């Protein structure tokens, strides 16, 4: 009786170990696009969800986030031209706590400035993943909504939100800087209300986003998640 119990326990333990190993394997990213000798340089851990704080703490954090929006200085399309007047004296975005930062590590707002070509999409994905959460995405111009005038182009994507989560869209071709400021004010309001959980959405639907991205980007020679 005792022996069979021990056997049973041992079998269960081995099975559990096996299951855990399998789970750990599943949790790892394949990084198929990388060459074998390069794999060691990159992280293969899946990104994990970070829950917001609760109650007044999160409200306070969200207030601070909404008052200090740092844009990634990466003009992805022709819409980036509308960002320049925002910085200078006519529109002066600094009044609203908006600044430009040159590195994705420090910025929290990514403005997709119009059409995104396939080549740019790869850089958009890399930059978006390198930004530290919580991070917000503004889709500027009609091209980000449905492709706009490029909707049947062979080399641009139509809907940016199939590849990264978007918080606010600003329609128009081109939207004026006032419209962009309006978009920022809407974004601030949404952040304060706790509605901008794009990063957690990206992580929850990670496989879906990755499948979409890989469908478009054929020369995928980067890790599956850019830490």
């Amino acid at each position: 009786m005792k022996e069979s119990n021990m056997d049973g326990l041992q079998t269960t333990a081995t099975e559990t170990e096996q299951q855990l190993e399998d789970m750990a394997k599943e949790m790892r990213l394949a990084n198929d696009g990388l060459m074998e000798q390069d794999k060691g340089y990159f992280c293969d851990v899946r990104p994990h969800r970070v829950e917001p704080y609760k109650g007044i703490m999160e409200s306070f954090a969200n207030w601070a986030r909404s008052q200090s929006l740092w844009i990634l200085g990466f003009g992805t399309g022709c819409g980036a031209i509308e960002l320049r007047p925002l910085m200078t004296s006519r529109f002066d975005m600094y009044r609203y706590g908006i600044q430009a930062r040159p590195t994705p590590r420090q910025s929290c707002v990514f403005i997709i400035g119009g059409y995104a070509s396939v080549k740019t999409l790869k850089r958009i994905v890399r930059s978006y993943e390198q930004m530290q959460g919580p991070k917000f995405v503004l889709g500027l111009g009609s091209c980000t909504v449905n492709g706009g005038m490029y909707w049947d182009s062979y080399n641009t994507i139509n809907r940016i939100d199939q590849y990264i989560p978007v918080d606010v869209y600003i329609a128009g071709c081109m939207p004026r800087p006032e419209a962009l400021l309006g978009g920022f004010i809407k974004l601030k309001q949404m952040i304060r209300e706790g509605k901008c959980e794009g990063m957690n959405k990206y992580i929850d639907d990670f496989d879906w986003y990755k499948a979409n991205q890989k469908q478009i980007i054929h020369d995928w020679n980067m890790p599956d998640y850019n830490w």
Partner: protein
Amino acid sequence: MNEIMTKAWYTLISLFVITNYGLLLGGTMARVRAKVQGRIGQPVWQPYIDILKNNFKRTGIYHGVMFYLGPVFRLAGGLGTYLFIPAVYGSLVFSNFSFSGDLLLVMYFIFFGQLGMALGAGQSGHPYSPLGVSRGLAQMTAFEVPFALSVIAIASQYQTLSITEIVAAQQGGILNWVAFTNPLAMVAGMISFLGMSMGNPFSVVIAPQEIPIGPPTEMQSSFLGMLQTNRAIFNGAKLVLFMNLYFGGATNIGVMVIKTFLIYLYTVIVDASFPRFRTDQSIRFFLGIPALIGIAAVVLQML
């Protein structure tokens, strides 16, 4: 024991005041720059919100132990610089840990933070970080020359290496300030201060556009929050040091605020008026006329 506790409390109060003063001063000067450019500018309290935001970030990437320690060294450099300078002459609370050889220690601490940052930034593996660090250290080595000469001139003038004694010797009227008793040392020192505050024309170290922001390129989330806090403390410490060395120090907080504000305003005026030097140009600049002025100041003292 009681004395130590009292001193600890005074230190905390002093640090609290200089941190807040540094942050508000940073916010105010951003507004001054905005006015020069015809803008309204960010709110004065924006630096507080930025630090809060960075510390509330949910994720952060680290690259190893030195990456953690880099901002810590930088903060230690800022704290070290401030804590050995008497902020207000004759005040118990703001005299900090000033002692007889503090001037040398402070000059070392000004360098220390940048060296710590170099180690941290190096481990991040980002090619732009060492690039920014090497530019920063090269420029720092260059502006240290006129600054050190100026300090040597003042030290030989008053026969002391204690900042408190240098301030004490300048009391009793505006004409007793080093700015008037030893104008060459003041000029050399104030030119090197432009390099130390890294505004234009010496801003290529943190060049915000060409190399993405130099040493702190990979620093994010709370690492960056710590660096921003340190920037406020370090700025305050440098302003107080230059006020003590050249402009007679301060006998109360009000005088300190006015003098340091004006010294900072001087760097902002230069910053807003001039284009930028390349690193080699700024090195040549510091080793040229400012160094000669410094040598002249020392020679005149020795005669």
